[in-house]
């Protein structure tokens, strides 16, 4: 379990993380969201023991990150932002080094190293210097380093940043596969990633927690939650749509002959709309019920906080 209690980090001029408190249980994949500069990386740096908190505390599996830093660090794998590595080492040499630092020797070490190499599919670049690798491979080397000792806690700072869509998919599958009995914290500003891998999302802005819930809960905060979009052959009767019970508003896109009908919070409007279509005999080419738009929720949450 990871527990943060009023974790705060102040730099000379500003407060990067402001009294952040939350818990993460094993099995959870926590998406850590926020605009750039919101304090995501600073929080992760404090959790991993790289930065010392100004005040407050945090513990990893019962080990306080200040007083029992080494025990805490043994339990976790960390991918720092940008996946820094020792560029003058070969991939094999680097992963060997990490395994040795983690205390593995002999056959034990070989098994660990080979497993990590296999999981990240690094076989083809083992002898290459890390400096000469592409961004995607570098990121994978960083991930291999983080998961090598099968840690109970995995902290990944923007793990898919700079990867192509295939690699992103691969990394997400890997994280999902690892997540079963672990705690995984992923920071990201790619919102699709949250719905794809996370079981829980925390949004922070200006160092403060502004939302905490499952991705679905976050989506349901959107004004587009349960909104229905219709695309017809010709203009649709917006007055009739607006008059339906539970409808909060209507957005019309003239060019595409599409109408988005917004639902009032907590209301389901699809059945009424469906009945109206049948009754009016409209020819509808497309019909889409939305769960909500995360980017819109994200903007509302983080901008509101900034003002």
């Amino acid at each position, binding site marked *: 379990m990871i527990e943060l209690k009023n974790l705060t980090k102040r730099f000379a001029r500003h407060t990067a993380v402001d009294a952040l408190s939350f818990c993460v249980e094993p099995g959870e994949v926590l998406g850590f969201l926020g605009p750039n500069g919101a304090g995501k990386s600073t929080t992760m740096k404090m959790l991993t023991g*790289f930065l010392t908190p100004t005040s407050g505390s945090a513990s990893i599996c019962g080990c306080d990150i200040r007083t029992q830093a*080494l025990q805490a660090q043994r339990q976790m794998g960390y991918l720092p932002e940008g996946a820094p*590595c*020792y560029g003058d080492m070969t991939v094999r040499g680097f992963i060997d080094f990490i395994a040795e630092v983690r205390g593995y020797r002999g056959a034990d070490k070989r098994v660990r190293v080979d497993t990590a190499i296999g999981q990240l599919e690094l076989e083809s670049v083992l002898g290459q210097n890390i400096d000469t690798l592409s961004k995607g491979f570098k990121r994978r080397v960083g991930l291999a380093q983080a998961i090598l000792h099968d840690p109970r806690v995995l902290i990944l700072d923007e793990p898919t940043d700079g990867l192509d869509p295939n690699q992103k998919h691969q990394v997400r599958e890997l994280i999902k596969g690892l997540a079963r009995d672990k705690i995984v914290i992923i920071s990201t500003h790619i919102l699709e990633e949250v719905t794809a891998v996370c079981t829980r999302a925390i949004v922070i802005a200006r160092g403060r927690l502004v939302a905490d819930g499952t991705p679905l809960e976050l989506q349901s905060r959107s004004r587009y939650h349960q909104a229905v979009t219709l695309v017809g052959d010709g203009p649709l009767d917006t007055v009739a749509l607006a008059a339906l019970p539970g409808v909060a508003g209507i957005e019309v896109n003239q060019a595409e002959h599409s109408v988005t009908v917004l639902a009032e919070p907590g209301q389901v409007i699809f059945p009424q709309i469906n009945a109206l279509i049948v009754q009016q005999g409209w020819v509808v080419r497309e019909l889409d019920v939305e769960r909500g738009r995360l980017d819109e929720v994200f903007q509302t949450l983080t901008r509101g906080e900034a003002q």
Partner: protein
Amino acid sequence: MSQLPVIFKRELGSYFATPLAYVFTLIFLVLSGVFTFYLGGFYERGQADLIPFFSFHTWLYLFLIPAIAMRLWSEERKSGSIELLMTLPITRFEAVTGKFLAAWVFAGIALLLTFPMVITVNYLGQPDNGAIATGYFGSWLLAGAFLAIGSCMSALAKNQVIAFILAVSVCFLFIVSGLPMVLDAFAWAPQWLVDAVASLSFLIRFDSLSKGVIDLRDLLYFVTLIIVWLMATAIVVDLKKAA
């Protein structure tokens, strides 16, 4: 303590991963030869010892040692790998000492490669090989003191060139504090202060070692200096790592 050899091995290996190690060794060997034979008047003295060889080490190290120390921490901070290193389960002591020892052993290897000097002097006469061994040991201690200062300066500056210049400047102060021109400037001061400043000097401490005289106080001086500067390195690393 257990992970110190792992850090040491990686650091030492990284010296040889780039041409730096070979270039450094070559320059050191060539310059130490030039200094000994031309400036030191090795033949003209007509004595079978290595005093002219060792006497230039202080000045040679002034520029060469900061060059191998400058990358120790600057590079880690510049590439961001310091974040990786400091979040691995190793203590700050292991990181600082492991890195320092790697650089020190590397300097030792370069120093040992001057062995033809020993063969030459043994071929030409009957030198006191014990004194030569002491000279080598003293020279290695001197290199260690320079390296400990260089490591601290490297932790201070993100830029390797700045780390180099800082290290040369601080080392220079430790050398010249024994020269008459500096001590004369302290003419107004009480004698104990003049002595204290003079006793800080590498020149005076190394002088007796290079002649084969082992004084416990000189050994203690170098060892203390190394420890103090490494402790300073650990503190600076902590303060600066996030910057």
